[in-house]
């Protein structure tokens, strides 16, 4: 239709038609959905980028805490009372994926000549060299008082474990031999003839298999090789398995002791390979091991899982008690408020540490440290929540809509929890989220100070891990580092998340962030 030539004043009648003939005229329905209080809060929360990031970090940490103890537990971590643990202490973090970032289980150190040759001896005997790299060899340190020379090297803490003596039963001895044949990995190394050694400490040192001076310095032959002094006499109980290179069949692999009925076999084992035999995988601990040889990763994750569950429990209990207490206080007011406020004053002003101590002294024997700690938290923790609820009740209880509901015959309980309480919900949610990081903080504080001990065989708490790591901070910082990183991440992300929620639930801030 050509608009320019169209005559608007004389539109023919048949061009018109009724737009609504059957239906009545009414307002158009909104195409958009209505935005309620919680939807609005959600929308504003999502606009806050740092809170979203924090939420994802929390998700990651929760997954870490839930799944690591399930998937990363193995034969090693589930045998907590095994004394072999003490052979694998203070191992450094090792994870092939992050070897470039320093998680290769190695450390830089300066060795004197004696110790350098000890490492070389391990390499010579087993074919696995603990020295990964030599930065500077055989130099003289002017500040040193002794006349030895020094080596700057990088040492693999796993192969550096070297040899140890083990006393085995007949059955264990045969089992290792079988395993050696199947896998082709040498675990037992020949026994040493210690008759030439004069010093008792050298005789008890499993790493020595070569001729050496009384100070442990190896006597090298003309070509600069170690001179072995393996045992070639006596019985080794019919050793029938792998033999080391250079063995013509005369080396003995065990020293027998005990009676003929119960013979025990004292053998030299290479700890790295013994681990493989015993636990079925090559030793590699992602976060390293602590001073007792326990795996830090699973203990940390177990501790986190406990802390999370514990904090959520406390938050829920506090919310429950605080909501009821605050509602009664705020709704009834007057004398009731005065009395309940005094109770709250007293409980809220007990220093937390005093409450914890008294509960530990009285209850820990009967119900265990965890429950008594829970009591201490609940005793003093709910007052903040109650104060929040009371505030909201004072604000809303005299408003017109409450009066209307009362006139219609609503009961007190209905007024309290149906009409007033939902107004306090936003602040309550925020409050109970922020209880979680403060619980982490005080729990790790208490365990650090040793007032509460929550350690079990499979998990530890972050505070006691940090406390155990502090004396070793100079030589083994990794024992303290990972718990510190985890608690810092948890605290930062929970605080960011909680603050984001608080801003989102605060309607007076609407529009200010843009």
């Amino acid at each position, binding site marked *: 239709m050509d608009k320019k030539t169209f005559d608007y004043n004389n539109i023919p009648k048949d061009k018109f038609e009724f737009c609504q003939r059957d239906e009545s005229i009414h307002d158009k329905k909104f195409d958009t959905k209505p935005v309620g209080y919680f939807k609005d809060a959600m929308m504003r929360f999502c606009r806050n980028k740092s809170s979203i990031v924090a939420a994802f970090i929390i998700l990651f940490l929760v997954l870490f805490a839930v799944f690591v103890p399930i998937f990363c537990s193995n034969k090693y971590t589930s045998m907590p009372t095994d004394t072999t643990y003490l052979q694998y202490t203070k191992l450094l973090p090792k994870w092939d994926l992050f070897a470039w970032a320093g998680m290769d289980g190695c450390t830089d150190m300066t060795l004197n000549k004696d110790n350098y040759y000890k490492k070389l001896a391990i390499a010579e005997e087993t074919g696995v060299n603990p020295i990964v790299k030599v930065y500077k060899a055989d130099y003289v340190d002017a500040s040193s008082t002794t006349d030895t020379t020094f080596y700057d090297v990088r040492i693999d803490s796993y192969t550096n474990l070297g040899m140890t003596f083990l006393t085995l039963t007949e059955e264990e001895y045969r089992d290792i031999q079988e395993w050696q044949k199947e896998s082709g990995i040498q675990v037992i190394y020949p026994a040493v003839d210690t008759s030439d050694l004069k010093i008792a400490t050298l005789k008890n040192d499993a790493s020595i298999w070569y001729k050496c001076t009384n100070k442990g310095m190896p006597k090298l032959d003309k070509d600069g090789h170690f001179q072995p002094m393996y045992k070639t006499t006596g019985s080794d109980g019919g050793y029938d398995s792998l033999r080391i290179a250079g063995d013509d069949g005369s080396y003995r692999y065990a020293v027998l002791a005990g009676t003929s009925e119960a013979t025990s076999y004292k053998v030299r084992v290479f700890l790295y390979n013994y681990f493989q035999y015993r636990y079925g995988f090559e030793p590699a601990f992602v976060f390293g091991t602590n001073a007792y040889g326990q795996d830090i990763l699973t203990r940390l994750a177990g501790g986190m899982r406990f802390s999370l569950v514990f904090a959520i429990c406390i938050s829920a209990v506090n919310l429950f008690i605080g909501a009821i207490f605050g509602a009664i206080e705020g709704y009834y007011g007057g004398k009731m408020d005065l009395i309940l406020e*005094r109770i709250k*004053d*007293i409980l809220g*002003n*007990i*220093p937390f*540490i*005093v409450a914890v*101590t*008294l509960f530990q*002294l*009285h209850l820990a024997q009967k119900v265990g440290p965890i429950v008594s700690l829970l009591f201490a938290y609940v005793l003093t923790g709910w007052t903040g929540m109650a104060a929040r609820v009371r505030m909201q009740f*004072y604000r809303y209880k005299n408003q017109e809509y409450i009066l209307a509901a009362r006139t219609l015959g609503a009961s007190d309980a209905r007024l309290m929890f149906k009409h007033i309480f939902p107004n306090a919900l936003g602040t309550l949610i925020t409050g109970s989220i922020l209880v979680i*990081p403060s619980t982490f*903080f005080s729990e*790790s*504080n208490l365990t*650090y*100070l*040793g*007032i509460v001990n929550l350690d079990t065989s499979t998990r530890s708490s972050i505070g006691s891990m*940090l406390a155990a*790591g*502090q004396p070793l*901070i*100079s030589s083994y*910082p990794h024992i*303290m580092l990972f718990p*510190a990183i985890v*608690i*810092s991440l948890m*605290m*930062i992300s*929970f*605080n*960011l998340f909680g603050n984001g929620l608080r801003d989102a639930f605060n309607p007076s801030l609407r529009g200010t962030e843009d």
Partner: protein
Amino acid sequence: MSTIKYICKRLALMVFVFVTILTICFVLVKLLPVTEAEQFGKDMNLILQRRKALGYDKPILVQYLIFLQKSLLGGDWGISEELYRGQEVWGMFVSKLPATVLVNVYSMLFSVPLGLALGTYAALKKNKWQDHLISTLVMVCISVPSFVYALLIQYFLCFKLQLFPLQMNSGSDYFTWSMFKSVIPAVISLGLGSVASFTRSVRAELSEVLTSDFMLLARTKGLTRAQATVRHAFRNSMVPIFPMILGEFVAILSGSLIIEKIFGVPGVGQLYVSSITARDYNFFMLLSAFYTLIGLVSGIVVDISYGIIDPRIRMGER
């Protein structure tokens, strides 16, 4: 007049709460079993005689009256039974107080000016990159527990760079250079959290005041931005900040248990922790009373100072 009435009311309430808490503590401590009696190699008769001489065999109510009379009013808190055997508890406590106060006064001197300066700067540069940087650092410093950065400071500053000794010096020569140097790590780790919280509150308050109408008036009548900020905005924003600083000043007496342990500060916090581990109940009672009192007093000081700083605020009104 109403302020005085309010103060009196608060003080009376404080005494009531304090005495109630102490009573609860006293009864709970007295209900505990005597650990000494279970130990091997102790002469039971001797212990019983000593306890009798100290009046520990009387009924709890009588003991409680003695406690109120002698300890709370007379200031005699008994003698130490485990930790420093035979020493006066009160004297021991007083001798430990200076180290704690020293560390905490230094940390206040470090954190208040720094916090005020950073907060003001962030408020003036609101929503610029300086503000974002400061806010991020504040968030990190508030969230990360103080013992984590205490350990980091100990590792990097004390061990790697060897700037400071690992532990605080012992002894009572508090004003020498070497002592000052040895408390710096503890002061920094104690102060960082306060710096962050001061910065955060100053920024929030100041940025709110800066946008108010009287600031516009001040600029319109010809003040420069700096003049208006210092004379009008800064004073007004101090209303909630100043009570906070006062509260911290009272709380410095209590110190930090964990920082004292990490840096070996021979202070009250360490005394408290060791009294718990050694089960020395006289120390425990005294220090519990001390911590309760500090908490109560700092709360009251904060509340009262609100009314004094800003007369528009009438405390205790509904």
